[in-house]
């Protein structure tokens, strides 16, 4: 592809780039990766709470976007379609993980010599900074403890800042259900974190 055409690709909307990719302009793929990689990382990390899983899922999402490129139609925004693929992949991965049995490799309690190591955090933080760091951790932990259905809509709405219509399309649920889940999810989150997170620390 000529360089003038490549620079033209960079100016196009997401949907136009996708159309070019469907027509064989493979450079469109790099543009889509560049535009969506951070959004997808943020979304999938907040959903899975695991960096390795997140990276694997983001890579797989982009490959699926390419493989299924001809099934994309302009009825929905490209971002909506990509988020849908990402969410479905995340759910599939987590269903598989739940079926796997996990064995602990922690210290054997019957053996008095076998102990877990406690690694001391030697970085000294001011009280307020420490509180803020812990508050973020608490919120992240609470987010991961939410029910899957609540977590996905909360992440899409409050972190990814998508509209209710987009969330309804991505999750395949009615808008009323989306709004209800968001409200219930927020209440549950508030209960989980309790008073730990002060409103002025985040």
């Amino acid at each position, binding site marked *: 592809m000529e360089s003038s055409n490549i620079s033209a690709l960079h100016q196009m909307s997401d949907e136009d780039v996708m159309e070019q990719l469907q027509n064989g302009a493979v450079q469109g793929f790099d543009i889509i*990766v560049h535009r969506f*990689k*951070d959004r997808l990382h943020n979304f999938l990390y*907040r959903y899975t709470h695991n960096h390795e899983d997140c*990276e694997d899922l983001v890579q797989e999402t982009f490959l699926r976007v390419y493989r299924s490129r001809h099934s994309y139609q302009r009825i929905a925004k490209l971002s909506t379609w990509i988020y849908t693929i990402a969410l479905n992949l995340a759910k599939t991965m987590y269903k598989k993980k739940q079926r796997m049995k996990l064995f602990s490799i922690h210290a054997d309690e019957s053996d008095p010599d076998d102990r877990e190591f406690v690694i001391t955090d030697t970085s000294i933080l001011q009280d307020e900074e420490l509180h803020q760091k812990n508050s*973020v951790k608490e*919120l992240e932990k609470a987010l991961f403890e939410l029910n899957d259905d609540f977590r996905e809509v909360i992440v899409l709405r*409050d972190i990814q800042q998508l509209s209710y219509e987009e969330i309804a399309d991505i999750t395949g649920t009615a808008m009323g259900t989306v709004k209800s889940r968001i409200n219930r999810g927020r209440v549950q989150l508030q209960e989980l974190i309790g008073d730990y997170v002060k409103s002025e620390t985040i």
Partner: protein
Amino acid sequence: MKKDTYHTHLNKEQSCFSEYRQKAHNSESMIFNYSSKNIAQKLSKLPTIKAKPNFEKKMAALFALELENEIHTRNSEWLNHKKSIKLPELIDLQKEFL
């Protein structure tokens, strides 16, 4: 007269109670809405998790492999339809040269 006073008093009490119930409901809704908005604000301020710096390079390599697989699959399918085309046999290097 007394009955009228009683009824007036009762109505006044009921009206006060309804007003109180409405205020309590409004106040609960406000607390609910405040909590809901509060948690939404906290979530929007969580740090953004971005892709690692070498992610695009990694993705480009994966994509190159994907394209190669695609070409290979397409070629195989094409050859399967063209039975008259026969590819030369692979040379057994050990047999030929050793």
